[in-house]
């Protein structure tokens, strides 16, 4: 029990530690910048929300970046224009995102199959268009800037390093919240629903409402990450919340693995490296290459993972942890099957 119980936290601490060590030299390393380390954590938080939605509501969302955008724009407008405290603005963004997600969920969860994905795609595009067109409020294509640093009492998060620490603290909170949830009544209802809706309903679980709730929860994760992002870059514009960012979250969650909330940070690391890698490498081989070549890398990573690690990186990591635990001899009972491995990593 011991090793498997603590392995996830060790994983978090390890990744965090590596980040701290890398931070001073990040800009000198290939495929890495300080900013990437921060973005990695922020995307990990947002994608964790999508992992909950995909893993448990069984819903593919093509509009997750819109909720990231709700947080970013709410923070931008409330802190830069009307001088709200960052924490209050963040909370406001989370509430708005949750309400929007619940409303969207009400409509969307009546639909089935491709229509679901289409509806979220439409939502993402509508958000993008509204942000771009509502000049007086959002600054349109130019976006809106002047977002102050995030502050918490005497703490001011005004550097890459401090933002990195903040993002990782929030990531940890997100992981703990998800773990707490999953090992409780409502979380077990989510897992049950993700596995068999008819059986979940047969014990009294309101499937439609539970889906709405997890959709709203996923939106809150995205919104909080979006708020932090706004403080970090001090400027938001629509491009950060369009279709490509939504696809990126989808790739992060899938590559990381949707069975486990630990998948999102893992997937995020891979995607950050891929994005930066293609940005640096492609122009070296293709002269005059500009544009979003990372999408090709995303596609490739997605295919490879789905072929060789269908449960994502987290599924693969869970297997490693299990092997390590076996090796350390901490398993108390005879192994019934390999199916046990995932349970602990949730």
């Amino acid at each position, binding site marked *: 029990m011991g090793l498997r119980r603590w392995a996830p936290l060790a994983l978090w601490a390890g990744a965090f530690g590596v980040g701290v060590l890398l931070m001073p030299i990040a800009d000198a390393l290939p495929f890495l910048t300080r900013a990437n380390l921060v973005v990695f954590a922020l995307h990990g938080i947002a994608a964790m929300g999508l992992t909950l939605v995909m893993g448990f509501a069984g819903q593919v969302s093509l509009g997750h970046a819109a909720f990231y955008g709700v947080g970013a724009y709410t923070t931008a407008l409330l802190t830069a224009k009307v001088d709200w405290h960052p924490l209050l603005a963040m909370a406001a963004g989370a509430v708005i995102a949750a309400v929007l997600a619940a409303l969207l969920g009400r409509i969307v969860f009546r639909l089935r199959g491709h229509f679901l994905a289409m509806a979220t795609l439409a939502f993402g595009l509508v958000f993008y268009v509204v942000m771009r067109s509502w000049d007086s409020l959002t600054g349109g294509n130019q976006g809106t800037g002047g977002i102050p640093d995030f502050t918490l009492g005497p703490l001011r998060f005004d550097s890459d390093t401090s933002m990195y620490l903040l993002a990782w603290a929030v990531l940890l909170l997100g992981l703990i*919240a998800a773990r*707490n*949830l999953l090992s*409780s*009544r*409502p*979380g*077990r*209802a989510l*897992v*049950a629903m*993700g*596995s*068999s809706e*008819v*059986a*979940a*309903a*047969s*014990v*009294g*679980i*309101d*499937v439609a409402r539970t889906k709405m*709730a997890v959709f709203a*929860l996923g939106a809150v994760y995205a919104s909080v990450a979006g708020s932090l992002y706004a403080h970090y870059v001090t400027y938001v514009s629509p491009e950060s919340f369009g279709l490509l960012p939504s696809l990126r979250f989808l790739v992060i969650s899938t590559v990381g693995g949707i*069975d486990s909330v630990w998948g999102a940070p893992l997937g995020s690391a891979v995607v950050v490296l891929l994005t930066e890698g293609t940005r640096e490498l492609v122009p070296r081989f293709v002269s005059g290459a500009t544009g979003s070549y990372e999408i090709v890398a995303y596609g490739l990573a997605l295919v490879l993972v789905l072929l060789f690690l269908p449960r994502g990186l987290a599924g693969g990591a869970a297997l490693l942890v299990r092997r390590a635990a076996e090796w350390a001899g901490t398993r108390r*009972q005879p192994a*019934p*099957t390999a*199916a*046990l491995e*995932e*349970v602990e990593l949730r």
Partner: protein
Amino acid sequence: MSLLQVEDVTVEFGGLRALDGVSMGVDAGRVTALIGPNGAGKTTLLNVVSGVLRPGRGRVRFRGRDVTGWPQHRVAGLGVARTFQNLQLFGQMTVREHLLVGRYRLTRTSFLEAVLRLPRHFREEKEGREASDALLSRLGLADVADWPASALPYGRQRLVEVGRALASEPSLLLLDEPTAGLSGAEAEEVGRLLRRLAAEGLAVLLVEHHMDLVMSYSDWVVVLDHGVVIAQGPPEQVQSDPQVIEAYLGEEAA
């Protein structure tokens, strides 16, 4: 009045009439068996009662309350639990977790209370653990409580489904072929369990193919054929009903 009353229920799939004016009752403290040849509409009736299907015509009353067309989770919330013919277990969950999910309707912990680990979470987890441990021992599943249900042999997986249903402390239990794929001894075991549950006041509605089991463990038998109730009564009476014999012989001849 019966705990469950089905009145004149008709269900059509396209042009096919799966149930045609079915009326029957299920009483507390009794095992009622629903039998009939394949395609007679037994599972369809269970689906109507548990809210999976809405009947085209007719009413379903539970404790005198009209629950026709109610969604599944609301019917379950009143204390109607069921199992499935094709097992519907929850992927990676352990046996104990299945029982904890079964207690959903009896518990209240919300998302927020769970995330923040507020007192209600701990209280309900403790109660749930105690209650499910007791039920696990009763079903002979205590030794595999922490196993993933999917790792168990088929017969015990069926028991996990029964356990999940019982964990919700229902007053009506609907069982869809609980002994399918079980050995004779295992099926006997299920039969004895059903007798004990009925003795405690539970109403059991059992869809079953195992004729020996039906004859020795049920109090009342309802026979469906082509969506119509062709006979009902105590087992020995139904057994000798010429219409019933014909329905079954007809199936074998076909």
